[in-house]
Each structure stands twice: as C-alpha cells, then as structure tokens.
C-alpha cells in the first residue's frame, strides 16, 4: 500500500480543522486528513470518539460546525448538492424499508439514483448474485436476518457505482461467507476511495492506505500511512486506551 500523499487535485478528501458539535457537546474537534482518489482510509477509535459522526459529515448528512471539508472536490456544506449520487454510504441502519422486499428496495434506490428499466434490473440482478441473495431477494426485509439485511445494504450502497464509499462497520452481522462476498463489492480496488470505520483493525488495516485514530472527544490522535500504524496501537485505540 502506498504511503506518499497524492497531489491536491487527486484528493478524494481534504479535512482541515473539522469540528462538529451537538449543542454544547463537541463530537469532532480539529480533525485533519487527506485521502487520495483511489485510497482507503481506516478510522479507529473508542466508542463516542465521533467515527460515525465523521462519516455522516462526509456523506453530507450532517453539516460541519467548523473547519474546512472538501469531498471529491466539493466544499461542504456549500456544495453538498453536487455530491449527491457520488457517495455510497453504509451506516448503522441498512436504509431499507422493512415492508418491501430486497428487490423492491433496490429498485426504489435505483430509481432515486436515475437508474431505470433494463439497466436497473440488470444491475440489481448482478448485485444480488454477487451477494448470494437471489433466492431471498423477493422476501420482505422484515423477514430477513440481520446478516441478510446487511448483504442487501451492501448492494444498496454500491448500486449507483459511487466514487467514494463511506463504510461504518461494514462487516457487522456478516458471517465469514458474507464478509467475503461483501469484500468483493465494497473491498479495496476499483479505483474508488473508501473510508472504513471499524473496531476490527486487524481485518481492516491490511486493506488500507491511510489510518486515522480518533480519541475521546473527537480529537484526531494520529493520521498516518496505514503501514505506519502498529496493530497493537490500533487495537488499543479501538479499546479507548493509548500507549
């Protein structure tokens, strides 16, 4: 994995002094990082360090309270509208309607993203096959296990072939087979940037180019090449301790 920073024009992300407050509480404070257009970033830190908040800010779902945030060349929050449809977001919730089937949910998302007709059906079939969900695709989401829902959420996340993937604990609820299938869809490669929030650095670090360690209160503890982050240090950071 590369460790040299790419030129500014090729950056997928550039954060300088990012701050996000919830009322009086600061969730992110002074986060700085740069990520190249085809690089993967792994974000580790204890519970409440602001990892999910960081992803929601990058996804344009939350407005930054301060600092500079540039995502795929668009400055937030002013140019957030230019980013819509270019980001694949996989958060804690699968963003699937429980009373619709998996296939109906994917059709709904395809139409929102302007993919219609045969192109949509072909893309949905391709993704369902890649996630080994063809047999269960016509069952209501409410009747599926959490792991099956996560597989569908992965399909939903990449349905519109986004340039940037924002993944919050993407392996949660997935078994070994599910993790492997999901890796084929949202894993590294394919020329797109990825930001992966994880409590499992052992699995995520080898795929990453860069690493960001967040501490309590949303402080940026360390931003470095992934190869420079010791696995033990990453584990301690996830557990809320530091060396």
């Amino acid at each position: 994995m590369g460790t040299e920073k790419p030129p500014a024009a090729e950056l997928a992300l550039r954060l300088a002094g990012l701050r996000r407050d919830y009322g009086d509480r600061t969730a992110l404070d002074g986060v700085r990082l740069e990520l190249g257009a085809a690089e993967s970033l792994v974000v580790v830190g204890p519970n409440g360090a602001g990892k999910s908040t960081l992803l929601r800010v990058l996804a344009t779902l939350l407005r930054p309270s301060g600092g500079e945030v540039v995502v795929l060349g668009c400055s937030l929050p002013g140019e957030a509208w230019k980013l819509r449809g270019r980001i694949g977001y996989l958060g804690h919730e699968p963003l699937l309607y429980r009373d619709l089937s998996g296939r109906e949910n994917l059709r709904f998302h395809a139409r929102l993203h302007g993919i219609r007709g045969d192109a949509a059906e072909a893309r949905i079939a391709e993704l369902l096959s890649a996630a080994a969900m063809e047999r269960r695709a016509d069952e209501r989401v409410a009747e599926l296990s959490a792991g099956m829902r996560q597989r569908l959420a992965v399909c939903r996340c990449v349905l519109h072939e986004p340039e940037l993937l924002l993944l919050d604990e993407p392996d949660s609820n997935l078994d070994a087979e599910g993790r492997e299938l999901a890796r084929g869809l949202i894993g590294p490669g394919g020329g797109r940037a990825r930001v992966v929030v994880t409590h499992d650095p052992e699995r995520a670090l080898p795929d990453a180019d860069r690493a960001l360690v967040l501490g309590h209160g949303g402080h940026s503890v360390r931003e470095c090449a992934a190869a420079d982050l010791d696995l033990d240090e990453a584990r301690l950071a996830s557990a809320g301790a530091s060396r």
Partner: protein
Amino acid sequence: MTPSRVAFAAILGKDLRSELRTLQSLPAMALFSVTTFVIFRFGLDRTHLSGSLAAGVLWATLLFAAVLGINRLFVAEREEGGFDAIRLAPIDRSVLFTAKVTALLIYLLALELIAVPIFALFFLDSAAALGPLVSVLLLADVGLAATGTLISSMAVNSRARDLLVPLVLLPLVVPLMIAATGATEPLLALGGPGYHRFGTWLMVLGLYDLIFALVGYAVFDFLLED
C-alpha cells in the same frame, strides 16, 4: 440529477405499496370515522342531521380521522432510514413533499369513499348533496394534505409525535375547517342543497390550498437539514 417525475413516482409508489401491504393507516382512519358516526348518531339521539350540525359532524370526523394518517406519514422515513436515503440521492428534496402530499391525498379520498356514504346513510334523507360535496371534499383534502404533510415532517423527529401533530395541526386548519363547513352547510340544508356563498367558500379553500402548498414546497428542503 434524477428527473423529479421519476423520483416522485418512486416515492409515491413505495408509499402506496407499503400501505397496501401493511394496511397501517387507511383501515384505522376508516374505522375511526365509522365509529365516530355511530357515536354521534346515538349521542345526539338523531337519525337526521342538516345544515351546520351535519357539516360540523362530517368535517370534525374527517379531520380527526385524517390526523391518524398524518401521524404515520413519515414514520417509515424516520425509523427505516428513508430520510437519509433521500438526502443521499441526486434528487430535488421537495419531491418528497409533493409525493407525501399526493399519498396523503389518496388516503383521504379513499377514506371519504367509505366515510361519506356511511354518513349519508346514517344522517341524510337523500344523496342529492353528495354530487356538489365532491368539490368541497377535493379542495379541503388538498389543504389538509399540504398542511398535514408539513406538520408531520416537523413532528416525526419528536418522541411526542402523536401529541405534537394534533396540537400544531388543529389550530392551523381552523380556517380550512371554517371554509369547508361554510361550503358544506348550505349543501346539507333542510329541503335540499342550496348554494348560498358556496362559491366564496370554495375560493377561500382554494386560497388556503395555494398558500400552504407553496409554504410547504418552499420550506421542506430546510426541514430535511440536520
């Protein structure tokens, strides 16, 4: 950007499919209105109503039945991540407002297809007023759908949603109810439908619809921000 008509059809289709599959709103609205008519019939101890009393019974019942549907209008968006999905998609967010207004309008029309004939059966001597009543119902439904969608989208993030919707909505729809009952009263007068100031009340209803549809369309994007 995805064309607005495509996004509109996707959201409206999703809502109607979910409702047909789960029947969470319409049956409750219809059952509430029928039960309320029964209570009025025995509470007032009257088998026939006319004029302002008939108009009041009809509109109070339809309004409170509508509140049941308005309460649930954005629940799936809130609890199943629909708001986030729509905010991530390359669509004009006002499309969500227009799709929800249309969905609520369809629920209200379906409710009235059941409730108004039952009202006529319980309280009216003839069905002569039902024809002209359709225009009043349509105009009042548009206003109720626009205001209800706006309030529902504001209240859905509150844990006191079920309390907040009626508390905020009911004062806002007072002008709508005055105009709707004003237009309905002569239609249900003793001796057959009359049209005293009927046109004026229809214009008031139309003006209310226009104001709240424009306000909703203008502020909805802002309401979806965090």
